[in-house]
């Protein structure tokens, strides 16, 4: 074979991630980098496509029936409804519609759908969510767990600290009505327990979306809506 030029450092790392040889810590670093750098994410995706045909060599093995039964049981009811409402809401924000209009529109949008089979909030229900990046491949940037006993959301930021001192990460919950409620500021690279105000407890239900927006220091100037871009989104699900 003729000599090929060496891969750039970024591409070599992307290829190694696609191949699957990286250690646990390196894998996390690669995934974060994919979330932060669309060019790097594209390199990884291109390598996944290049290597994918190798998997065709594996002889298929039919899984036992029990696996489908378990999948079917584990599917959150109408899981995607909250996602659609959220996307709509984000679109509305981007178009600079007034918040009231966005809220009403989102409510109508949700209302026009068949009744959502979202489970009612159950006291004592532990919930968790993985908030994944909104550009490039879905990579977790924050993980959150709701502890109903402490009435607190335990949030871990996987974002490297001190990379963007001009902005803060503000956390929002968007329940099935599509209206965002502010939950507080997440410090990059830390785990913190955020006590939840009583009035927001009903919002912390299975199927509600958690979203993080990029805001000026101190948080969104508006109390009921993010003003910056949404960097990560996830849905609360039973643990």
């Amino acid at each position, binding site marked *: *074979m*003729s*000599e*090929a*030029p*060496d*891969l750039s450092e970024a591409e*070599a790392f992307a*290829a*190694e991630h696609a*191949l*699957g*040889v*990286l*250690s*646990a810590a390196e*894998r996390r670093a690669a995934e974060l980098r994919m979330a932060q750098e669309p060019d790097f994410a594209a390199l990884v*995706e291109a*390598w*996944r*496509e*290049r*290597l*994918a*045909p*190798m*998997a*065709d*060599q*594996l*002889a*298929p*093995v*039919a*899984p*036992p029936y*029990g*696996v*489908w039964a*378990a*999948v*079917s049981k*584990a*599917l*959150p009811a*109408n*899981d*995607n*409804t909250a*996602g*659609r409402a959220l*996307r709509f809401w984000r679109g509305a924000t981007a178009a600079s519609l007034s918040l009231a209009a966005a809220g009403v529109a989102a409510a109508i949008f949700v209302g026009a759908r068949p009744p959502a089979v979202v489970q009612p909030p159950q006291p004592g229900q532990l919930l968790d969510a993985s908030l994944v990046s909104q550009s490039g491949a*879905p990579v977790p940037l924050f993980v959150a767990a709701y502890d109903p006993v402490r009435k607190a959301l335990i949030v871990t930021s996987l974002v490297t600290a001190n990379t963007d001192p001009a902005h803060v990460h503000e956390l929002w919950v968007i329940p099935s009505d599509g209206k965002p409620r502010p939950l507080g500021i997440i410090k990059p690279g830390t785990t913190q327990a955020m006590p939840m105000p009583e009035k927001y407890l009903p919002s912390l239900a299975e199927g509600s979306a958690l979203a993080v927006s990029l805001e000026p220091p101190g948080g969104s100037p508006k109390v009921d809506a993010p003003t910056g871009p949404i960097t990560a989104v996830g*849905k609360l699900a039973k643990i």
Partner: protein
Amino acid sequence: MAAATTPDALSALMSRVATGERAALRQLYEATSAKLFAVCLRILSDREEAEDVLQEVYVTIWRRADRFDAGRASVMTWVSTIARNRSIDRLRARGPLAYADQVEELEIPDGQVGAEALLEAKGERGRLNNCLSELDDRTAKVIRTAFFEGVTYEALARRMDTPLGTVKSWVRRGLAKLKGCLER
């Protein structure tokens, strides 16, 4: 096995899954689960754990179906990537040296399967295999092992009784050549 196995049919299924249609997920499962189970099984080499991961994989597909972008990846690559990532994450949880000792029965297919695939000529699989077969045997084998078993450089180095840096440079050189060959 469902009929929906062409790329277009799978793509159409994915958009129905994205709208929350369970029947579509069921069809996608029927069309792809044997392939994905093979992927999980090969990496984890533990049936029970592979079944567990496979379940997570389809729940993940259900949750993320709305992110699937047909313009950026094929359905098979997208779902296989989820299966590989989940399995590798599970494997890493066992430690960096998981499977540093080769499991004999898991010997990966090498030249023989490659030769069969060559006969299929053309097609993406044929091209990749052609290019793999142009690498020296040791490099091709280490790349295949890494892909199929999802083991770390560290485990590969231990297995081959070779310094980690050397294994790493074999793989990197091999991948660069592979890319050059695929672009020819």
